């Protein structure tokens, strides 16, 4: 009859505590330095140099404690979690130790529970000690004790410790090699995220329009990347209403998940064969998963690396690189499993895997699943979310992102989507060297059946190309322009400034810059800002501003837009930036932590209301005027001809008469000239 009495062994527990004391001692020491000792040091130093009262200093210090959870707390829990697991379960990785421990009169449950709890105590006992000593330090330094923040730290840090330690223990059950444990642990902590990234970059060359995983899949990936998720979400923030801890759901869920992983680890341990000590993978059923997983991951990671390093730009180059590294990964995994270099007898498995991968990639390329050609019909789309870049002028409307249920816009989006697919399948010929514009569009359809369809496109479009008409219909649509500018986002009650760039001074022949707050007295600033805002909004309403053009050099764009951009700044006093816990609620309301927003609008000669207000404010006058875009395009073209800008070779430009006394230069980026310098000899 089996005994069920020994689920915990005190002797073994004590032995673990005494054997591995450096782990918990170091963990405790770091936190003791970070909290109670720092409390004492901060108070004594500030008292000496700044003369602040101890209570004020301890209040400030206590308010900063949960800040330690961000990044540092996660790092401590993740690092010491795996160290503790490596220590207390180290007996599984040595044949002699495994034999001795398992010959003791303790059941597997007892061994597991004793080792698990002793490792957990390595982390939780120091946490409790730090909690106690921090309270003591606060009390001794000032007589003031902030129980809330240090208790919050204790709960959150302990939760993270439970998760990371249990996760490490879970990994420990699947390996028989001590060094493999931290490797598995580290890899599994980031595997989902890395795979998502690799799938994204690898699928793009094979699957035209591939837009990454669905939101749900991405959300799952983030949850499966605990270190990153906790670093990103556990925050001690102040949004003007006092500090609070964000990421509590994550902390609770991961703590519960940690306990569940510990239970699963016990189940694996009960089935584990002790003779697997020394094996990289200790559980038989996991061995093929490990072998093929390593092969595919090395194919994805190193295959893409080789592809990127050597710049093999064709999908088949990428496929070759991927297959090569898949094969290398396969045999490397086999070597680890067999603990031998003589593994090439297993070539059949490798060959089957490579054939499957090649078939998979080729079917992606051939669009065997109809992914590329799948275009929803308008009546099956509930809403569409688009973001992208394209159209002119170069202002707020060039980049856009919005969601709409407008049927007209949905139809135009689908038409553009179809245009992209057609262009991909039957490319237009005769792309000119210049006058081709690159447009980008990310689209996400919410369909009537509740599913989501996402695609990502980027393509050159030029006058006469197949894509021109659907692109023009979409990009130049007034509704798209209105949504792109998003003028209703501006908060007129918190206007900060207006800046105007590239006004043309007819006397000095130079561009001028204007900032309203530098020219108008403070008492009059708000009225002036509001007047400009109202005028701009009126011009938008009347269609005098915000018209979009598909090509930079098309006639409408050149004749109806100016070189001048007007930028409106406004602020949100409790913006969504992360604010430092060092800032009090009063300080948080000051400009230090405000979020500043802006919108730039390219002026047009038809923006009568705006021009009138700017003239009234003295911004525009007889000398300082607006200049049409055509004027600089002419200069730009001349510069292109002289300096071979955009691919022209000046030597090929025969038969063009240029003023021999003029010199011209362009300073600019890919999206247009920043400045044009013209010099003429007198």
């Amino acid at each position, binding site marked *: 009859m089996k005994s069920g009495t020994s689920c915990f062994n005190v002797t073994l527990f004590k032995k673990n505590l005494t054997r591995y004391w450096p782990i918990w001692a170091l963990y405790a020491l770091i936190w003791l330095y970070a909290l109670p000792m720092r409390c004492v040091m901060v108070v004594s130093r500030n008292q000496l140099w700044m003369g602040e009262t101890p209570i004020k200093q301890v209040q400030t210090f206590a308010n900063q404690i949960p800040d330690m959870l961000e990044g540092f707390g996660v790092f401590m829990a993740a690092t010491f979690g795996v160290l503790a697991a490596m220590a207390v379960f180290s007996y599984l990785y040595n044949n002699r130790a495994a034999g001795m421990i398992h*010959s003791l009169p303790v059941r597997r449950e007892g061994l597991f529970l004793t080792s698990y709890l002793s490792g957990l105590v390595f982390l939780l006992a120091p946490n409790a000690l730090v909690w106690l000593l921090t309270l003591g330090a606060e009390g001794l330094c000032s007589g003031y004790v902030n129980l809330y923040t240090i208790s919050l730290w204790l709960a959150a840090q302990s939760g993270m410790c439970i998760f990371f330690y249990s996760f490490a223990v879970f990994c420990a059950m699947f390996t028989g090699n001590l060094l493999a444990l931290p490797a598995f642990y580290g890899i599994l902590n980031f595997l989902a995220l890395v795979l998502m990234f690799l799938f994204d970059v690898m699928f793009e060359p094979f699957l035209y329009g591939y837009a990454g995983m669905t939101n749900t899949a991405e959300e799952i990936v983030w949850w499966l990347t605990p270190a990153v998720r906790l670093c990103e979400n556990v925050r001690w923030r102040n949004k003007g209403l006092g500090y609070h801890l964000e990421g509590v759901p994550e902390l609770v869920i991961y703590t519960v998940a940690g306990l569940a992983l510990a239970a699963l680890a016990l189940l694996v341990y009960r089935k584990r064969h002790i003779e697997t000590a020394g094996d990289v993978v200790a559980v038989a059923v996991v061995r093929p998963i490990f072998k093929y997983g390593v092969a595919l991951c090395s194919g994805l990671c190193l295959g893409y690396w080789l592809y990127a390093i050597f710049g093999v730009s064709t999908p088949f180059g990428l496929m070759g690189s991927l297959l090569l590294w898949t094969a290398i990964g396969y045999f490397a995994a086999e070597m680890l499993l067999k603990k031998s270099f003589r593994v090439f007898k297993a070539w059949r498995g490798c060959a089957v895997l490579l054939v499957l991968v090649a078939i998979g990639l080729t079917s992606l390329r051939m669009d065997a699943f109809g992914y590329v050609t799948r275009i929803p019909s308008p009546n099956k789309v509930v809403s569409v979310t688009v973001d992208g870049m394209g159209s002119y002028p170069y202002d707020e409307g060039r980049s856009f992102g919005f969601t709409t249920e407008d049927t007209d816009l949905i139809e135009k989006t689908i038409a553009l989507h179809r245009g992209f697919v057609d262009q991909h399948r039957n490319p237009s010929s005769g792309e000119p060297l210049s006058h081709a514009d690159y447009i980008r569009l990310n689209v996400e359809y919410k369909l009537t059946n509740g599913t989501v369809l996402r695609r990502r496109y980027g393509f050159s479009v030029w006058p006469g190309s197949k894509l021109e008409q659907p692109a023009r219909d979409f990009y130049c649509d007034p509704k798209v322009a209105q949504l792109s500018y998003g003028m209703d986002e501006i908060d007129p009650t918190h206007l900060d400034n207006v800046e105007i760039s590239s006004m043309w001074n007819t006397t000095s022949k130079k561009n001028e810059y204007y900032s309203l707050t530098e020219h108008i007295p403070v008492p009059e600033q708000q009225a002036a800002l509001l007047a400009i805002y109202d005028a701009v909004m009126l011009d938008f309403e009347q269609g005098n501003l915000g018209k979009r053009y598909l090509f930079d050099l098309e006639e409408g764009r050149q004749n109806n837009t100016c070189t001048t951009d007007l930028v409106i700044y406004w602020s949100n006093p409790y913006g969504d930036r992360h604010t430092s816990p060092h800032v009090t609620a009063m300080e948080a309301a000051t400009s230090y932590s405000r979020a500043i927003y802006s919108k730039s609008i390219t002026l047009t000669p038809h923006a009568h209301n705006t021009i009138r207000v700017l003239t009234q404010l003295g911004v525009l006058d007889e000398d300082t005027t607006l200049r049409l875009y055509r004027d600089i395009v002419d200069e730009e073209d001349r510069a292109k001809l002289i300096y071979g800008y955009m691919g022209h070779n000046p030597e090929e430009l025969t038969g063009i008469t240029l003023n021999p006394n003029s010199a011209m230069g362009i300073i600019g980026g890919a999206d247009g000239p920043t400045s044009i310098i013209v010099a003429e000899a007198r």
Partner: protein
Amino acid sequence: MIKINDVVKSFDGFRALNGLTMQVEKGSIYGLVGPNGAGKSTILRHITGVYRPDSGEILVDGQPIYENPEVKKRVFSIPDELYYFTSASTRDMMKFYRGIYPNFSMERYEALKEAFSAVDEKHPIRRLSKGMQKQSAFWLALCCQPDLLVLDEPVDGLDPVMRRQVWSLLMGDVAQRGTTVLVSSHNLRELEDVCDHVGILSKGKVLLQRSLTDLQDNVIKMQVVFDSPELPELPAELELLHASQVGRVHTLIIRGNAAQTKSLLAACQPLLMDALPLTLEEIFIYELGGEDYEVRDIVL
């Protein structure tokens, strides 16, 4: 004490135990012998509850040993490769085992200090010589006062005096407490001195197991001289395991007892006939000879 029925254990496709069946009587000293790779250490790890068999059962006092702390409390093992906690001294290990094994006797620990006086109980075990480590292991094992002591190559590394002392202590426990000792060793001459039962393993199975007396009675070495130098035709009833010749003296290894063999050989009218008992080593080699173990001519 130990009953093993048809135990099978495979490692990565290699069948280390292939339907092994054996029995160890309570209070006996059972010697387990066999060539390298026969499965001796593997079966010992099953008997100490470390390995789980793929099939079959291992009973100690009628109860399965695997995952059974009540039985394992009465079993102590000294493996071939000893394990101690890093930096642990004999005293540290004593404290550990004292907390684990309910029968651990401090009086015995103090009493045995004298027997193992060469071992500094406060010195880290890993810094001791191999022989000292073995002494430390025996010291601790004897203090645990197990009902079953499982030993894998136990005296390997001990000097002859200490070997004798260790065996003396073990036999004292067997006599006084009825301890059962299961010992695996390649030192057959030594086993012959201490074991009362022997089991021979080959290829994961027990070839034979008997008391040493039965074993020695069952195979006999005859030295005979005939008229002619050649070996005459022997009676068909004689099961000849091996024959060799030096000069006119024939050495015959025959399965059967001495009296019966002598009477059968007498029919061949030998000039001289003498029956000699076989050593355990010779029995081991001749029994394994049928198992294609080609060393007999080298040893003899």
